[in-house]
């Protein structure tokens, strides 16, 4: 903790503080001590990180991660998830509550937090359930969840179908100032669907999930948000209609934030190919014009954060008929490379890309970090923007390998991750200290 570290001559991109240029960054006692244009002298005993040609960034923050503990430790644990996080450059993750004992009580929250302390790698912020058991029937004890350490409430994986209950959740949460994070899916419209409804689902003879299944719920919740003066965060936005509604709501001053996953902005429904369950997720991969709309929304600020919806599953969950395949892919270790694809393609500038991984999510959930001003936590990610590498799922730190990106060529890679001034990942190795 007390180590002194000097990051020398890296390109510091810190969107919140308007920094983009070569700087020295001095870290002391787990916090950023100084960011300087001019080269700084090396303090005695300091570790020096030569960062010329590299990007020195605020540590990435992922608002949407499934750690699977408690209950499905064969897929992931808090520890293995934290390893995957720091290997992907993330210094903080928000853990979804849909574990096999649902995080709808302070006890479960404390369990997750104690596992995170034991892992001692990155910050883990639990999200509590909106409703008891994620059943969508009664509110969970939001106050207890928040005082135990939850930073948001969500029934992620399921929508809150009951509009009156959703309205009360938004009202009730205003007491605590936390966002209500929503998985937007009208189950009557998505019922039986296995992929996006469009020409690809028609070709494959799969029941489709229309975009309206998401857009209709976004519309409903924005109406409720306006009435309740609450705080809404829309998870994994997937389609053009949602983007349009969110953009308009923000323009009118509603307190709404939104995230998009790297896979929804990189892939469209054609990735399903011949029934590849690795391209099966909820919401489904959409049409190319939806992808286009999401990319625009990343640029113009309609989307606040890139979040991975890291969803580990076993091989047997995916080696089945497409309709039976479980939704979701792992994402922590591929997020940066996929985001940089947009940067290299000229669709997103580097500063905005970094903002979407750092200050954007920090601001949406009111989390510490996400920037590098003196006094900020020394959560730092060092990136080689030019290193070429190939995604190899067998080498993931995550306990699961379910990704459609295995074998994909990437340009740009995380080389070091620092949390509170401690090196937790470097040279391809997670550095444990337990």
């Amino acid at each position: 903790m007390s180590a002194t570290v000097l990051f020398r001559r890296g390109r510091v991109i810190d969107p919140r503080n308007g920094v983009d240029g070569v700087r020295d960054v001095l870290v002391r006692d787990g916090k950023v001590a100084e960011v300087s244009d001019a080269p700084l002298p090396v303090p005695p005993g300091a570790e020096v990180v030569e960062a010329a040609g590299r990007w020195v960034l605020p540590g990435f923050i992922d608002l949407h991660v499934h750690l699977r503990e408690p209950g499905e430790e064969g897929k992931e644990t808090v520890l293995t998830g934290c390893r995957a996080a720091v290997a992907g450059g993330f210094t903080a993750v928000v853990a979804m509550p849909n574990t096999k004992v649902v995080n709808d009580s302070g006890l479960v929250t404390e369990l997750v937090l104690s596992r995170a302390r034991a892992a001692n790698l990155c910050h883990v912020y639990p999200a509590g359930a909106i409703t008891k058991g994620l059943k969508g029937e009664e509110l969970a004890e939001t106050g207890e969840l928040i005082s135990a350490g939850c930073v948001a409430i969500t029934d992620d994986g399921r929508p809150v179908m009951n509009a009156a209950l959703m309205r009360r959740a938004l009202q009730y949460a205003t007491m605590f100032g936390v966002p209500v994070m929503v998985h937007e899916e009208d189950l009557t419209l998505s019922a039986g669907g296995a992929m996006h409804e469009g020409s690809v689902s028609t070709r494959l003879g799969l029941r489709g999930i229309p975009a309206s299944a998401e857009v209709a719920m976004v519309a409903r919740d924005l109406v409720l948000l306006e009435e309740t003066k609450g705080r809404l965060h829309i998870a994994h936005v997937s389609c053009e209609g949602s983007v349009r509604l969110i953009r308009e709501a923000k323009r009118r001053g509603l307190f709404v934030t939104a995230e998009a996953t790297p896979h929804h902005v990189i892939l469209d429904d054609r990735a399903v190919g011949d029934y590849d369950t690795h391209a099966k997720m909820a919401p489904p991969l959409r049409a190319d014009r939806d992808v286009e709309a999401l990319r625009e929304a990343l640029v113009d600020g309609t989307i606040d954060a890139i979040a991975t919806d890291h969803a580990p599953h076993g091989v047997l969950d995916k080696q089945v008929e497409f309709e039976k395949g479980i939704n979701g892919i792992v994402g922590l270790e591929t997020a940066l490379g996929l985001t940089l694809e947009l940067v290299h393609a000229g669709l997103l500038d580097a500063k905005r890309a970094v903002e979407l991984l750092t200050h954007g999510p920090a601001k949406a959930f009111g989390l510490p970090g996400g920037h590098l001003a003196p006094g900020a936590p020394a959560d730092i990610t060092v990136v080689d923007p030019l290193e070429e590498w190939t995604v190899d799922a067998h080498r993931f730190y995550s306990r699961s390998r379910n990704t459609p990106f295995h074998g994909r060529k990437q340009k740009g890679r995380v080389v070091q991750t620092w949390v509170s001034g401690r090196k937790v990942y470097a040279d391809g190795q997670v550095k444990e200290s337990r």
Partner: protein
Amino acid sequence: MRHLLGIEGWRRDELEAVLDRARAHLPGGPDTTHLLRGKVVANLFFEDSTRTRTSFHMAARGLGAGVLDWSPSGSSTSKGETLLDTARNIEATGPVAIVMRHRSSGAPHLVAKHVRCVVINAGDGTHEHPSQALLDAFTLRQRWGSLDGRTVLIVGDILHSRVARSNLWCLKALGARVIVCGPPTLVPPGLEALGAEVTHNLDAVLPQADAVMCLRLQLERMSEAFLPSTREYSRLFGLTTAREERMKAGSLVMHPGPINRGLELAPAVADGARSVILEQVSNGVAVRRAILEVCTS
């Protein structure tokens, strides 16, 4: 050796090779019992279909193959055995081909990725039914010689029909124009991109058709609110005797069976002069022999 997972992706000359070969397998043709003698064809039917199963069974026997008929006992799936477990167990018995029917679209694609023998799709979910499309095309070729310049109208529940997709690709590849017609709730999006013309007005297009292919309507679609009633469906999309009178001279009526008589097709039309429904059935075995022969060679 080649899988038949669907018609999509097969070229015209490849389809024609199967259809040409099927002629040799018609009743009265040369003895073909040596072609698969000593080999085994596995019939893997997860979903009931007496017609298709029997037809493939007879086709395999006609080529001299032994047939392993397998259906889920109910126990294997309830014990958690996966589709791949089952397929690998069947593969271990050493068949030259697995003929499979499954209620999930894409199930044969999954199996084909994990076994070494040929996989022939005998119907997967709401995706494809390639042998049906080939026998339909064979029946039309018998009547017309060539499908070039002909118009085929497919009427009914396009959304849930595996026959419709396979026929669309097959007929288009062989040079026909294809119009699909059904209520908007039962016509999936994006069919134009697959080469079909789409309409919801049967009477408007009926006079253009050289053949009308009626699809079977699953009666549970009523309770799922795809349709208000069978009565209304029949009024709007049924091939009644009155509609038959407005059909082009010499045009044909087809149905993949089994027919809901009086619903999608009036009995007098099903049994009438235009109907080639029984020819479709009797051509089934010859076409499936050709499929087995071509795919395993």
